[in-house]
């Protein structure tokens, strides 16, 4: 139980808000409407695209690619334009993006992991590691053994620096 019931920070005029931590270019990948419609679309039929979703074409391309059976391209897309940020309106979209990435990883042969990691840029590797930790946070719905193999291959290449960046980065997936 919290010792103080009063939020003392809100009394101070110049206190730090969560949004202040995010860099200027960390504008959320999706607007609330987009996130909402994306959540509805993918829950039902992934191929039918409502008009309001066209604001984030890259994201839809990735979903299409995944549906049309090119998981590697879908993975690269997902790691190039990930859904991140905080706010309830993003939770559904983040859950879908997270699940998609984990599904792709689970569907890929573990022998291919090292070669796929080698083709990623360092920024994409950081995002992949964030998705891995997201998977570890929900062990009931993922096969952790697969993710651990990916984690091993990824950290071999990206080093402890990537783990540090997952810990410090406020752009959570």
């Amino acid at each position: 139980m919290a010792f103080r019931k009063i939020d003392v920070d809100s009394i101070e005029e110049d206190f730090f808000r969560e949004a202040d931590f995010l860099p200027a270019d960390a504008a959320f990948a999706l607007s609330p409407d987009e996130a909402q419609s994306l959540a509805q679309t993918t829950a039902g039929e992934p191929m039918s695209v409502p008009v309001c979703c066209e604001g984030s074409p890259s994201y839809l391309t990735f979903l299409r690619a995944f549906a049309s059976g090119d998981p590697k391209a879908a993975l690269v897309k997902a790691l190039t334009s990930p859904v991140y940020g905080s706010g309830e309106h993003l939770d559904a979209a983040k859950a879908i993006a997270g699940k998609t990435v984990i599904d792709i990883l689970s569907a890929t042969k573990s022998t291919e992991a090292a070669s796929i990691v080698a083709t990623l840029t360092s920024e994409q590797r950081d995002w992949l590691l964030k998705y891995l930790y997201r998977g570890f946070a929900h062990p009931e719905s993922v096969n952790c053994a697969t993710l651990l193999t990916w984690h091993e291959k990824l950290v071999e290449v990206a080093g402890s620096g990537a783990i540090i960046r997952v810990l410090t980065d406020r752009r959570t997936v």
Partner: protein
Amino acid sequence: MTSITDHLFPFGIAAHAYNKDRSQVAVCLDTSDVHIYDTTSWTLLTKLTEHDELVTGIDWAPETNRIVTCSQDRNAYVWTQEPNGTWKPTLVLLRINRAATHVRWSPREDKFAVASGARCVAICYFEEDNDWWVSKHLKKPIRSTVLCVDWHPNNVLLAVGGADMRAYVLSAYIKGVDSKPPPSPWGEKLPFNTICAEYVNPAGGWIHSVAFSPSGDALAFTGHDACITLAYPGTGAVTTIPTDRLPYLSMVWINEHRLVAAGHDCAPAYFEGQGDQWQFVKALDAKEVKKAANTNSAFNMFKQMDSRGITSKNTAEGKTELSTLHQNTITMVRAFRRSSEGVSEFSTSGVDGRLVVWAV
């Protein structure tokens, strides 16, 4: 690229500063004391014991031979040497209500900047009328604890980095102390607290170190996200190098195209490049360091028991030893000697108690 001298103190070193001819070194040892050692005999010359809390920063002005220290007790002292060799402290009015975290003399040694947890940087200068060090606060864009500062060679601009994950370049122009600075890529008119630049650490993380290049036309900063960012205001180029190692805590420019950084990784690392083309070059591992082979295992065992509290014989035989010269986090890198091409030797100090001088 080898270590020239390597001294092991029986305590961790939070910060160190050499005098002008490098014959003496002042070290902060994670207590309220500062010790000054002779660098040839390693005898303790003086203890500076005026602070009440942990001393967090130290700087030794080479030309005026004055030491400035700052501490978690919210005070800073300027130490001047008496003719008989003792050091006399003068209290500085910092007017901060949180700990001081870092201190640096300006290049002309007429001002110094004290970073603090009070979300400000105190720019201190000597007021002749009152015979007293007074301070003005740089406050405006800073949102959190300031962890590091670095002076531009023009004696006016100050780089500031802190826990708000941003690096700033601010003007610390003091009327009556500074003459008008020449125009630079950072700006032309520079009254006090002008915000010349603001950079965000892309992957978050506190800014541990900021450093201007020797010309002052570029700024490097490194944060807890294990990235180093280089910014050129002239061209607008900003390059971030994500490393695969642990975060760096301190860095020094060797010349305009090369810098050395060190920190939690325990090994100093080189970065090279210019403009938007910068890259990690290499870290100095023990494999490259000419370390005197010590085959005396009994001696090693007792040394380990003494310095690291390891008693088991197995572990004493080097199994827990890192492959780097420093056996723990490096807290500070400083230029030790300069040649016409830039820094030719640099010194590092660490939590493991080592104070090492390296050749570039």
